């Protein structure tokens, strides 16, 4: 019994020792990688610039894509069909039509807006426009029609729904206002898809260039240290022990480049995009707040991409060196 306990204790101690030893070696490799990263500062700066540029393109593509998608979703949510009725159609008839529409499976919701409500809203929306205000005074009456605002659950169903309304209530309706938003959405969708495609291609090219340059930078740094590896081997260092510090070095390149790219995209969102902001679709402040509220996704993707590039480049570079 005592022997078994002693053996278990011995095995546990051995396991903990091995674990501690591995952790100690990993910590030392981390330290070595950091020292080398700092020592090769000029080489590091050059690599970081290229990496930042690549990550900036990738991050911006993602950021703009996400923002555009959000924009489209917002617009889509506001898409509706406005059915305007002839002035002679009374409220009872309109309510009958509304009930009928509510029974249609394509309809998600309807809202009846009478002439007085339409006028009230119109005046409120144009209270700063003197010409419209004057014109309304001149008319001295309500020129607007009663309407029903119809919403559907699915963007794709609007066309079918509009056709149904036009065909079934021809006598009662003045006109059906549908198509304006649809065109905007379709155009935006096309623009965004093209931009995303271009961004993806550009991003991929930049990532490939970044991997190549990081790989070459690390290889140059390794070339300068090739005699050191030989000495390390002679002293008894295993290949893994020699490999890990340069891999950490590559990860540092990726890490710091990612941080810089994340800040730069934030700056772009704050300053540079004022060109787009405030032009009707989206406010300038919304761009920055959108970036900040999605920072964990955009920053996360940039950070992971940066770390991946650093890891892959350094692993390939050092593996080639230690093959011989």
């Amino acid at each position, binding site marked *: 019994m005592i022997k078994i306990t002693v053996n278990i204790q011995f095995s546990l101690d051995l396991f903990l020792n091995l674990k501690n030893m*591995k952790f100690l070696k990993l910590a030392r490799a981390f330290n070595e990688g950091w020292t080398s990263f700092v020592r090769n500062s000029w080489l590091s700066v050059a690599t970081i610039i290229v990496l930042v540029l690549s990550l900036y393109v990738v991050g911006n593509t993602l950021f703009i894509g996400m923002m555009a998608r959000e924009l489209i979703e917002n617009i889509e949510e506001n898409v509706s069909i406005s059915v305007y009725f002839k002035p002679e159609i009374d409220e009872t008839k309109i309510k009958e039509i509304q009930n009928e529409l509510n029974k249609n499976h394509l309809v998600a919701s309807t809202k009846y807006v009478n002439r007085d409500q339409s006028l009230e809203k119109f005046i409120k929306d144009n209270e700063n426009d003197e010409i419209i205000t004057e014109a309304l005074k001149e008319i001295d009456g309500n020129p607007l029609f009663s309407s029903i605002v119809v919403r559907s659950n699915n963007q794709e169903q609007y066309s079918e729904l509009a056709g149904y309304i036009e065909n079934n209530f021809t006598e009662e309706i003045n006109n059906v206002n549908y198509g304006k938003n649809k065109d905007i959405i379709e155009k935006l969708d096309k623009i965004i898809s093209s931009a995303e495609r271009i961004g993806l291609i550009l991003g991929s090219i930049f990532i490939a260039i970044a991997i190549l340059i990081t790989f070459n930078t690390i290889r140059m740094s390794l070339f300068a*240290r090739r005699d050191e590896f030989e*000495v390390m081997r002679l002293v008894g260092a295993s290949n893994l022990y020699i490999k890990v510090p340069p891999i950490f070095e590559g990860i540092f390149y990726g890490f710091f480049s990612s941080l810089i790219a994340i800040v730069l995209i934030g700056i772009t969102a704050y300053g540079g995009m004022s060109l787009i902001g405030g032009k009707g679709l989206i406010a300038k402040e919304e761009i920055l707040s959108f970036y900040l509220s999605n920072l964990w996704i955009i920053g996360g993707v940039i950070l992971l991409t940066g770390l991946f590039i650093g890891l892959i480049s350094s692993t390939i570079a050092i593996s080639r060196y230690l093959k011989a």
Partner: protein
Amino acid sequence: MPSIVFKKVEKSYEGKLGSFTALKDINLVIQPGEFVCVVGRSGAGKTTLTRLIYAKEMPTEGVVYFGNRKTTDIKRKLLPFFRRNFGTVFQDFKLLPQKTVFENIAYAMELVGRKTENIENEVPKILAVVGLESKKDKYPRQLSGGEKQKVSLARAIINNPDVLVVDEPTGNLDPATSWDIIKLLLKINQLGTTVILATHDKAIVDNIDKRVITISQGKIVSDKNHGKYTI
């Protein structure tokens, strides 16, 4: 402690101009704790013989044993671990230029997973043995040839290897410094470490009165205890 045995060892290299035989028909036994001088002219095969011992090279024919292990049976990825049985010292010192004296010695301890407090205790002790306590924070470029060789020696023995393989350690040093190095080697040997010294320094070999293996054109031409340099 393991002995070193060469059985019918031959080492040749393939080159563009054909095959070149560096060593042939080597039969040799080195007992634990011995001090062996391997002498011969430049190109005689001294370095190849020492490299075969710590498996930097593998024999083309025959076998080299370290204890009961054949060097040719050791898997490639396990070679670094096998080499930890040996301390190695070279004519060109082979120090890591970006590391200080302390760090160069500490590196050998780090890679075998020694704890930081052990390293901090033992490196100053070994620096005291080689007389370089005051140089611990210097870089190799700031040291003389003799000092570099002492650092190299300190690094080689810090992990208490079974065998110390020393290849032309005095080739770049003046006679007085050379003697300092040799005295250190003798001291290390007295503590039980096998020392294999490849050299063509006649004065040293004749004065230390140890076993001398003479190589000429890749063959052992003499192997004598208390031998002299006779080329």
